[in-house]
């Protein structure tokens, strides 16, 4: 029989390894994409795939010549920040009312909102497209801001609600006894206390908006198209230029990868809803 010590060590090693394997499997494609972007088209399509090769910048030069990268990047930035701002303006008061003036309907409202995230986006493509067409929102940044706000709102309300729920009611009651109005309660007590959680919500909304590929492809053509649409423009017809597609993907992902990497801790702390401390 194993001693206590040996038993524990074996378990730790065994299960730790599994966890790492899972993580590695998920990250390998990104590594592979960046690698491919520095290959020639011939190397990229080689079978079996090549790990060692002579790196080249030709794909990046080609993209620089063919497309206006900064036009798409600017669209991505405007749309991400715009929808995040709009979303927070709606999510904070909604979450405040749900967290601190809970009624019988509160839970079912939340439930209803959250369950919209479970809807297949293809299902609502038609009505959204028609509404956008009627209101002249097709291929506008404002239209994308609206749709991203709607998509991310349930998760934003939910996150902000969770952070507000963590704040003891006592503190708001103390503020009320101290003479604070409802607005002063929110701006001078609630928001400063939950600023860590709100920052996480903002981060998540930015990242989700940046990565969104379904609606941006279906609702934009060129003037409002973000980076995800740029990538798609390299993929469909000329399906064989893997290296160039890898390069444009790397360019599209780079800002958010760097941004996400820098804000990793804040983001995960926020996602964890206080479970990891």
């Amino acid at each position: 029989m194993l001693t206590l010590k040996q038993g524990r060590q074996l378990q730790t090693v065994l299960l730790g390894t599994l966890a790492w394997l899972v993580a590695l499997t998920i990250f390998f494609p990104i590594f592979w994409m960046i690698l491919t972007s520095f290959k020639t088209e011939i190397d990229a399509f080689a079978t079996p795939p090549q790990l060692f090769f002579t790196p080249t910048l030709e794909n990046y030069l080609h993209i620089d010549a063919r497309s206006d990268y900064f036009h798409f990047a600017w669209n991505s930035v405007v749309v991400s920040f715009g929808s995040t701002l709009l979303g927070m303006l709606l999510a904070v008061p909604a979450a405040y009312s749900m967290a601190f003036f809970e009624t019988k309907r509160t839970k079912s409202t939340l439930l209803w909102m959250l369950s919209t995230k479970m809807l297949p986006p293809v299902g609502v493509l038609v009505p959204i497209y028609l509404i956008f067409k009627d209101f002249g929102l097709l291929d506008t940044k404002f239209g994308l801001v609206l749709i991203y706000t709607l998509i991310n709102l349930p998760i934003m309300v939910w996150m902000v609600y969770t952070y507000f729920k963590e704040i003891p009611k006592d503190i708001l009651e103390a503020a009320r006894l101290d003479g604070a109005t409802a607005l002063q309660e929110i701006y001078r007590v609630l928001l400063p206390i939950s600023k860590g959680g709100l920052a996480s919500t903002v981060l998540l909304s930015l990242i989700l908006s940046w990565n969104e590929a379904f609606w941006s492809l279906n609702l934009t053509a060129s003037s409002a198209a973000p980076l995800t649409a740029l990538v798609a423009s390299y993929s469909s017809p000329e399906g064989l230029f893997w290296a160039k597609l890898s390069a444009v993907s790397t360019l599209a992902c780079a800002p958010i990868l760097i941004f996400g990497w820098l804000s990793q801790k804040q983001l995960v702390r926020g996602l964890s809803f206080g479970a990891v401390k």
Partner: protein
Amino acid sequence: MSDLTIRNLKKSFEDIHIIKGIDLDIKDHEFVVFVGPSGCGKSTLLRLIAGLEEVTSGSIQLDERDITDVAPAKRDLAMVFQSYALYPHMTVRKNMSFALDLAGIDKAEIQRKVEDAAKVLELGPLLERKPKALSGGQRQRVAIGRSIVRNPKIFLFDEPLSNLDAALRVLMRLELARLHKELNATMIYVTHDQVEAMTLADKVVVLNAGRVEQVGSPLELYHHPVNQFVAGFIGTPKMAFLKGTVKAVSNAGVTVALDCGPHYQLPHQSTSLKPGDDITFGIRPENIEVVAADQSPFKVRLDVTEHLGADTYCYIKLANGEMMTVRAPGDFMADYGQNAGLLPDLSQAHLFDASGKTIPRPRPPAQAA
């Protein structure tokens, strides 16, 4: 002046009646403690006074002004919460000045008031710290300081010591008692701990199931509880309750036969009792002496004996299943299962009728307080 008058106050949450009609007068400078078991409505009553809950019916008056529907901030009250409820993102100074700040008071004036309060509570060196850098006792003092700067008519405390450890609780209890004497303020204090109620209050309000059971000074409640509930709630270890029957009633008092054996004649005066009535005999642990088995008609077998050093508690399970506790001196020694006799001090005994109401006992002049 700060006289609080509560008349026929009721509070229901949907169909649940929490406060079932309370009348209460609190006078200027009094330290009043609301005490009772959990769920008795004591915290709700405090929150009604603070304005944090809406009154269902009845009225609350502060110095002739009806404050029943006034917003909390306009009631001239300050509250110290169980959780302290400090603003975690503000320094101690900001926490204390927040109310004055919102009221738009002059900066210099605010600074003076905060520093005065900090001096009283010895918070001076902590003024620039955030709450999370403070110990439990310090947070407690900041919460009190936040109340003091507002110079309210009444201080409300909602179980303020329940989050502190035992040693700190004793210290903060003393500090509160001292503060009450120094500020000469009116204070209303809620607790479930009868020791806190006994040690802090000028006047104790014992609540049970949304009603007031008794209002009085701590020693009044201890020596002259109006019913069995108050008698059992106040005092540790608990008063022993022994069931019995009335044998005779005369001018000299009441004679009772206890189910567990002995007969006692007690000096209590009653016009309502008659022979054959059920009765409960109550006696506190410190009013019983343990003697050798042949020296008393009240014979028992001692169960577990606990030596606390200064005192010894003897637990006794009587032949008829009733439990009682006796407090003996610290050097008392007994074996598990040993036979002994009990000598209760009958002048300190209590009698309760079948409905739990006290049969009054004669008061010696010294105890009339």
